[in-house]
C-alpha cells in the first residue's frame, strides 16, 4: 500500500499558473497607474491575495498534499488577518 497519494503536477500546469500570475501582476500595475486612491489600494491588495492563493495551492502543492498542510496554513492566515484587522480597527478608532 502506498503511504500517500503521490500527485505529480505537470510542466504545463506550472506554466499555466505562471502565465496567470504574470497577467495578474500586469493588471495590478495597470490599475494602480489610474488615480482611484482608496479603491486602487484595495484592488492591488485583493489581486496580491489572489496571486498568493495560486502560489500556495499550486506551486506549494497545498491543493494536492495531505489536507493537514492546507488546514494549518488557513488557520495561520486567519490568525495573521485577525491580528492585522484588530490593529487597524484600533488605529482607525483612535485617530
Amino acid at each position: 500500500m502506498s503511504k500517500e497519494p503521490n500527485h505529480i503536477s505537470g510542466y504545463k500546469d506550472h506554466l499555466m499558473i505562471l502565465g496567470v500570475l504574470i497577467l495578474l501582476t500586469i493588471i495590478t500595475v495597470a490599475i494602480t497607474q489610474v488615480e482611484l486612491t482608496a479603491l486602487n489600494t484595495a484592488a492591488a491588495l485583493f489581486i496580491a491575495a489572489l496571486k498568493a492563493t495560486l502560489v500556495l495551492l499550486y506551486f506549494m502543492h497545498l491543493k494536492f498534499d495531505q489536507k493537514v498542510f492546507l488546514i494549518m496554513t488557513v488557520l495561520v492566515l486567519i490568525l495573521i488577518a485577525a491580528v492585522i484587522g484588530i490593529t487597524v480597527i484600533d488605529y482607525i478608532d483612535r485617530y
Partner: protein
Amino acid sequence: MNTKTGNMENVIQTHPAHPDIHRDDTASKLGMWLFIFSELLLFGGLFIVYSVYRYMNHVAFDLAHRELSVTVGLINTIILLISSATVAMSITAIQKNDKKASLIFLSATILLAVIFLINKYFEWGSKFEHGMYPGSDLMGMLSNGDMLFFSLYFFMTGLHAVHILIGLGLLSASLIKIRKNKIRSDKYSLLENSGLYWHLVDLIWIFLFPLFYLIH
C-alpha cells in the same frame, strides 16, 4: 510474507550504505511548513508596522513611493514568479525521474535569483549614490513620514533579500545533491522543502511589490 521480506531486501539492496528505515518525508515537510508559518508571522508583523505608519503619514508615503521605479519592481516581480515556476518544474522533473531536466530547471531558478539580486544591487546602489541609505545625513533630514517610508523600504526589502540569499544556498545545495544522486525520484525531500522556502520568498514579494512600488 514472501513479498514483505522481498521488499526489505530490496530496500537494503538499493541503499546499501544508508537504508533510511527511519526516514519520514511527511514529517520533514511538516517541519518546513511550521518554519514557513513563523516567517509569515515575522513579515505579517512588519506589514502591520507598515500599515499603521502609512495610515498616520499618508501624504508622505504617497510622495515617497514615487521615488521607487515601478519598472525595476515589475521586472523583479516577474523574475521571481518565473523562478518559482522553474523550481516547481524541477520538482516535477525529479518526480518523473528526469535528472537532467531537474538540473536544468534548478539552474535556471538559481540564475534568476542571482539576476534578482543584481537588479536589487543597482536599485539600492542608485539610492545610495543620492545619499539615501539608512543612517545617512540625508535620511536624518527627511520629514518623519518620508524617513519611515524609506526605513521600512530598506528594512523590508533588505530582509527579503537576505531570504533570497538563504534560498540561493538551499537551492545550490539541492543542485549539488541531485548531481551526486543524493536527491533522486524516490528521495527528494530536500529539493521539495527548498522549493517551499523559495515559494515563500516569492509569496512575500507578491505583497512587498504593490505595498512599496504601486499603491498610493
